[in-house]
């Protein structure tokens, strides 16, 4: 918590949060708070009319974001945030609809909806929060878990090839695709603003610490250790073909804006 909160002056983002819902449910060291912070700052930069901005989430730790943001917000069913958002947007084109959800929610159970929304180029913005794991259900292996990474259901190391989310979204037809980690807050905020102002389907993958499960199982015990890892190993390569932006266990993380 920063000083502004403790000295009673309030945090500059308080009006954009459902303060009465604090404290949130996220673990200490979790990156989800940073994501909400960056989203709100990116949103403010966009100068969109806030009464017309709607957040839709699926289910998971990331999916709880909708509940803390002081906008019209919908916490739907696991995997179905994108089709819910699609209906919302099509029924009322005045709305700016943003999906904030987890990588498991969006690329496993909801994977089909993700590729079809990108294919249709529905005008929504998706923030796909990737912690390489299913957080809320206790750290099981997921479709983004790097090869050989340990999880509660792959204690011997993951044997399945993970998704490269920007590549998947780009191949499916997304109009804007980027990836950042929570260590690049300024770039992430800027990217969120760009995505919000982009017409068509935009997606930002946000690599985020989950010390409780992913970190603990993979020798990055604290959120801070994970953040340091992102800081030291992220390589900005905007404009490259996201095909070359796959993520390997403990390897470099290619970040940047890949499609615009």
């Amino acid at each position: 918590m920063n000083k502004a909160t403790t000295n009673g002056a309030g945090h500059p983002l308080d009006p954009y949060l459902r303060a009465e819902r604090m404290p949130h449910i996220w673990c200490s060291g979790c990156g989800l708070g940073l994501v909400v912070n960056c989203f709100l700052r990116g949103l403010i930069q966009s100068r969109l009319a806030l009464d017309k901005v709607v957040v839709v989430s699926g289910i998971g730790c990331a999916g709880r974001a909708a509940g803390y943001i002081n906008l019209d917000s919908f916490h739907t069913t696991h995997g179905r945030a994108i089709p819910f958002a699609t209906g919302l947007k099509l029924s009322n084109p005045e709305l700016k609809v943003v999906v904030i959800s987890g990588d498991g929610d969006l690329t496993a159970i909801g994977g089909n909806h993700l590729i079809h929304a990108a294919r249709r180029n529905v005008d929504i913005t998706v923030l796909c929060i990737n912690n390489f794991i299913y957080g809320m259900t206790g750290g099981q292996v997921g479709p983004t878990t790097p090869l050989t990474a340990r999880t509660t259901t792959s204690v011997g190391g993951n044997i399945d090839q993970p998704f490269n989310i920007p590549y998947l979204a780009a191949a499916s037809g997304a109009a804007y695709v980027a990836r950042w980690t929570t260590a690049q807050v300024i770039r992430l905020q800027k990217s969120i603003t760009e995505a919000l102002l982009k017409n068509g389907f935009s997606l930002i993958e946000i690599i985020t610490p989950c010390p409780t499960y992913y970190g603990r199982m993979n020798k990055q015990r604290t959120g801070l250790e994970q953040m340091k890892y992102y800081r030291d190993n992220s390589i900005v390569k905007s404009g490259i073909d996201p095909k070359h932006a796959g993520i390997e266990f403990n390897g470099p993380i290619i970040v940047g804006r890949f499609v615009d």
Partner: protein
Amino acid sequence: MTERKYIAGEFFMSGDDACAEGAISAGCRFFAGYPITPASEIAERMSERLPEVAGTYIQMEDELASLAAVLGASWGGVKAMTATSGPGFSLMMENIGLGIMTETPCVIVDVQRGSPSTGLPTLTGQGDMMQARWGSHGSYSIIALSPDSPQELYDLTIRAFNLSEKYRLPVLVMTEAATGHMYEKVVIPPMNEIEVVHRRKPAVSAGEYLPFKPDADLVPPMANAGEGYRVHITGLTHDERGYPAMTAEAQDRLVRRLVDKIERNRDDIIDLEEDRIDGAEVVVCSYGISARVSRIAVEQARSEGIRVGMLRLITVWPFPEDRIRDISEQVRAFVVPEINYGQISLEVERCACGRTKTVLVPHMGGGVHSPGTILEAIKQVAR
């Protein structure tokens, strides 16, 4: 919104087409669906008609997405529906629960076919009646209507929208391949003669509004997204603000109200067709296409001197418990023909509660009963 191409008059129309027209008449302006026999014609007609009335049609990637999109569209402030058949209906179950929990008005049409599984895609069935009642997880009450003709598919689709807006929940229209694909005369009245209900809007300012604080009828007024109320809507158990509340007390309060808002308004919701039940020794209780066949059997039985009455369930859920209980005190037996191996008959039996016999006349699907089978059952119990 200017209404272009609103059609009124007499038409020779299939049940599926009549259903689509009923939706248009009710003010439906959003359809999301996924093709499935025998419901596809509803989607096809909606894809043509919605653009004519400034509405939106979208073909989604599956039924999970279809109902999710419908719920989203409803919160966008637009009346929305989807149509499907058994396998697709199964896929919609989780989001039916979300619709109930978040009190989202919309209409789901299930044109039933032979089942289980892929079953008999082009042939009729009534195998989803219990799924309609209990298919989603948890305790809830639902409204399901059962038309017996293309005309009623038109009429009841309008009623389904009206009930969904009034009570804020997904309302089911449970029809069958036989009715959906049947062509008959359908009368579409002039627009100004159709009663159309809209969701009740908040009467207070954004600061004071509690999205799940009910009015006296147990239904909360509904603010749509984008109206400045900044609502939070979740499928989690929530309080009147819409915020998650993970306690047994909050669960009790919410789930009880979701059930009660339907159960306490049964008189308004339940619609039955009764024919010569007073003085009857046997009552045939049926619904949908089976009721049409039952009527023939009832007439034949009467011409043979048997005192038989007929009860047609137009509203299937909530179940007309009180009426069945009353009738059970007077008759020797209920005869329940349905195109499954016993679903609604179980409810009749439950309400009759041993006071009288309930005889199921099952048909496994793929066709309708022959009136003779039903007549035989009537004769057996009348003897």
